[in-house]
C-alpha cells in the first residue's frame, strides 16, 4: 500500500496483485479438480493395498493428459484462444 514513485499507480498495483492472486487460485483449483477427478476415474476404491498398480499408474498419466487437452479445448471454445493461465 506504499506509494510508488514510478511505474504503476497504487490502485493499478492493487489490481495487478489481485489478478495475480486470482490466477494462482485458479491454478490451485485446476490442479485439485484434476487430481480428484482422475483419482475417481482411475483408482480402485477397495484399497486392498497402498501401492498404485501399473494399470492405475498408466490410467493416471493418460487422465492428466486428457484433462489438460479438455482444458485447452474449452479455452478455445470460450474464444480466449487459450485457457486462463
Amino acid at each position, binding site marked *: 500500500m506504499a506509494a510508488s514513485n514510478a511505474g504503476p499507480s497504487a*490502485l493499478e498495483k*492493487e*489490481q495487478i496483485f*489481485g*489478478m495475480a492472486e*486470482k*490466477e494462482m*487460485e*485458479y491454478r490451485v*483449483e*485446476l490442479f485439485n*479438480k484434476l487430481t480428484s*477427478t482422475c483419482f475417481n*476415474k*482411475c483408482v480402485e476404491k477397495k484399497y486392498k493395498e497402498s501401492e498404485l498398480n501399473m494399470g492405475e499408474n*498408466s*490410467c493416471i*498419466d*493418460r*487422465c492428466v*493428459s*486428457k*484433462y489438460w*487437452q*479438455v*482444458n485447452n*479445448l*474449452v*479455452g478455445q*471454445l*470460450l474464444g480466449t484462444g487459450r*485457457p*486462463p493461465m
Partner: protein
Amino acid sequence: MDKSMLGDLDNLPEADKIRMSGMIDQLQIRDSLRMYNSLVERCFSDCVDSFKHKKLQKQEETCVQRCAEKFLKHSMRVGMRFAELNQGAATQD
C-alpha cells in the same frame, strides 16, 4: 453473472463507489475462473471415460464441445430467469 445483480452503487460517495466497484471486479474475475474450472471438470467427467489412449479421441472432443456449449446456453438462460426473479423481489420491497 451480471454485474448489476451484485449491488446498486448509485447512492454511494465517490470513493466508496470506486472501492466497491473494485471489489465487484475481483469477485467477477474469481467467479469466471471458477466457472471455467467447473465447466472443464463437468465436461471431462461426462465425456471422457476411457483411458486406453493418451490423446483425446474425436468423439470425446465432440462431446466436450457440445457439453460446453450446452452448459453456457443453460447458464445464460438461468441468468435471465434469475434476473427476472431478482427484479420482482426488488420491486416488492
